[in-house]
């Protein structure tokens, strides 16, 4: 859940995208981009990087990234948290689903600089020491995965799905888990696992 004591997001999606577009187009010089509407106004010049703080799985990280770096790439390439998978990089498959301030977010569709000060949970942060999260246990119990490429995203999505109260019936689970593709098509077992985990969590 959002923590009011933390600084609000310093960079909006629109401005950083604009900045990134200028950078990738290779334009040598253009006016620095002023960021509006944030509590801590920031400016990122084209081609420049920004220093941001991310809290991932309870650990604080400070890293310097280009504005165009997605949260997904920051997690995988910069923080070495490769449990989060890149399946499409376009928000279509759900393999990169993580929790941002408790809500499920496709990490490929959000820029790292936009998540300044957010609490991020990835699949690596789900277990309590050696004890797996009830959703992970239910996925194993019900054989809800085969190759594993979508599994991290499915599990993170399921955690949120249950928390949101969208795991009441099979039909509801199918609908609210439909943003996470599984080419092995373990859906029937995923649905069973989510329903089972929801009961577990509810106890």
């Amino acid at each position, binding site marked *: 859940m959002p923590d009011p004591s933390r600084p609000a997001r310093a960079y909006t999606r629109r401005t950083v995208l604009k900045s990134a577009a200028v950078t*990738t187009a*290779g334009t040598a010089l253009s006016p620095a981009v002023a960021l509006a509407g944030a509590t801590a106004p920031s400016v990122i010049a084209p081609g420049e990087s920004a220093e941001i703080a991310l809290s991932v799985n309870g650990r604080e990280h400070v890293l310097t990234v*280009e504005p*165009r770096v997605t949260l997904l790439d920051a997690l*995988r390439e910069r923080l*070495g*948290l*490769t*449990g*989060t*998978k*890149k*399946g*499409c*990089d*376009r928000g*279509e*498959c759900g*393999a990169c689903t993580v929790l941002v301030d408790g809500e499920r977010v496709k990490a490929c569709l959000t820029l790292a600089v936009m998540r300044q000060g957010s609490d991020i949970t*990835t*699949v*690596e942060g*789900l*277990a309590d020491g050696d004890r*797996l999260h009830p959703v*992970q246990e239910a*996925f*194993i*119990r019900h*054989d809800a*995965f*085969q*190759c*594993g*490429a*979508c*599994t*991290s995203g499915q*599990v993170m999505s399921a955690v949120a799905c249950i928390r949101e109260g969208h795991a009441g019936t*099979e039909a509801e*689970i*199918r*609908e609210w*888990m*439909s*943003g*996470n*593709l*599984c*080419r*092995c*098509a*373990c*859906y*029937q*077992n*995923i*649905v069973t696992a989510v329903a089972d985990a929801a009961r577990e969590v509810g106890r």
Partner: protein
Amino acid sequence: MTATAEPEVGRARHRKEDARLITGATRWTDNMQLTGMLHMALLRSPVAHARITSIDVTEAVKMPGVLMALTGQDVAAEQGSLPCVWPITEDMLAPPAPSLAVDRVNFAGEAVALVVARSAAEAHDALSAIDVDYEDLPVVLDMERAIEDGADLVHPDLGSNKSATWVFDSAEAGTGSDVDAAIADAEVLVERTFRQQRLIPAFMEPRSVVVDPSPDSVTMWSSTQVPHILRWMLSATLGIPEQRIRVIAPDVGGGFGGKLQVTPEEVLTMLVARRIGKPVKWTETRTESMLSGHHGRDQVQRLTIAARRDGTVTGLKVDLLADMGAYLRLIAPGVPILGAFVFNGIYKFPAYRFTCTNVFTDKTPTDAYRGAGRPEATFGIERMMDELAAELGVDPLDLRRRNWIRHEEFPFDTVTGLTYDSGDYEAATDRATELFGYDALRREQAERRANGDTVQLGIGISTYTEMCGWAPSRVLGALRYAAGGWETAAIRMLPTGKVELVTGTSPHGQGHETAWSQIVADRLGVPFEDVEVLHGDTRISHRGLDSYGSRSVAVGGVAVALAADKVLAKAHTVAAHLMEVGEDDVEFTAGTFSVRGTSTTMTLGDVVTAANAAHNLPDGMEPGLDADATFDPSSLSFPHGTHLCATEVDTQTGEVKIRSYVCVDDVGKVVNPVIVEGQVHGGLAQGIAQALYEEAVHDESGTLTTATFADYLLPSAVDLPHFTTDRTETPALTNPLGVKGVGEAGTIASTPAVVNAIVDAVRHMGVSDVQMPCTPMRVWKAIHHRGDGVPTTPGAGGGLGSVNVDDQAYPRGGAE
């Protein structure tokens, strides 16, 4: 060492692989970070057929972080030609297949230049600085037009777009009579043309390659199904001594045939890493994957079935066009041929002829996709049986019963020259109809028809068989395949009594670590947990032919059992020697050797320790208990089953809803029912998706318009029904485990069940076919007899077929 209490084979074990997959601790290729590693990106042609008149990388090389930019000319002398190991005929036409196009491009998505940079982002940035001029050439897309006289040519040097024509004729082969005579004498003749649309394997883990060159050897990590074949082919293509290449397939996130390939990207990563002397990684984007990874299916099927009025089938004639795309990939020419042997399905056809022409077009190359040839064949025959039943006015299930091989007729020599060793189609069908409530659904269907409900009910049947266990090497040789079909397993009995099992199979989601452990535990009486399965690294698993074609358990799993038997045979001799009795006096149960009629025993662990110490072994015996075995099956295996699908078709909107889906499969003996169930679910989903959702669409310029998951419709949880599954178990008689294979069965069986159900729902409205995928638009058009005049747009489910041509080119069928 303790004995296992219950048999391991057949036990519903959770998978050993699960722990690392569920925590995200997998070892994907793209996770690899090596010191000094560079990144490669590829520039791909936006046009389908063109001459490259100029290509300039000078600006790209100046971009930040860029170390190298190369064109096809720069690597022409060393890149060789990508391998195709299945020349199906002596006179097959095969064009050179460069990894990087040199002076022409033949499909949109073909790589034309590469950049190596410090980061992947910098490499991709630099692609936009490469300047390429293309001079357009005529684009060849439609197979039928491609083989007309005077057609534009994909490869002018070859002089034709026909790569090869392959024929099987039962009269010539001596396996049956003449099909033309059967057709001439037929009391009933049904002819249909079906289109198998182009599909994309769409594994979830994008392909990735890392190459670490060193002066004495080079290591490649690749997201591949076939590390052994890849090593062999890299050596053959690039001339690098095979012993100096190590290929590792770490955890691989799905393949479905799509990673059964030797790719341009693997060759190029190898080339640039060796040239630059540093580790290089290439990981594809999703759109690159869909543009350039091989596609599947894409056939036009012209089918003729001859029968008597009483429903007895008398002949089957199959004429196929199979789209190879722009080049012949690894086994592509043989894929449609795999269908030749099961087009007759489970039925007793006395006469059969199969003709397939492989055609070049300016599209992404095709190759194996889950089922590879058998889904196409099964679709053809199962759709035709429904059409024949409609023509005769009989229940399609009764027609099948009349013609299928009865259980007492096994082993049965088929018209295609195979011997089906075992099966019980009656048992599977009886169980399926019971679970489905067949009679009650037929009654409801009649009521809805009588009432004129806007939502009509249809019942679709698919009583399939397929062939697994690729393959007997002799069969492959007879089919002109360049390699064998055996598989190897090696068991290392460690001094502490633990076991390492090395397999030549290369799992990518199938759970071999679990299933193979169960086989070893059962054979040796060791705990399941004491077995470690090693695979996917050619320096550890030195011999193997990898995983595809539902071969892993039926060939590789059997090799595991045979290796264990060798360990036991030697252990038996050692135990008898140590207990100072004759071998005949020793028996082995649950991990322990005992002397009959005495209390003298030795565990296998004791024997292993003694065999490794080698202080007291029979004269001349080698120390240790390790053993390996290579299994080359004498025959293929033939899973079968009955799939029943009930669809509700909204006649006002064309929307199709699957109301229930029942399948009863017979995959022989089951090693792990949990894994089998998962394979069935996944197979069903991919087959159903072909029927309802998926299609790779090229527009009139040859651009793939379905190169994202927003356009290429993989089904999600909400798009699929709950499956009711069950099994019958008729052991295969051609291997000691009695296993048949299960990886592709669901995909092979389910597509015709769904389409038959859709047609069955609206046949009374004059519909005898709906082209796949059966989108609401196509279903609506079929019901309302609107072949044209309805605006359609290319795109997934846009209703225009694999090539953007008018639906009229493939007329709706009708009783002849």
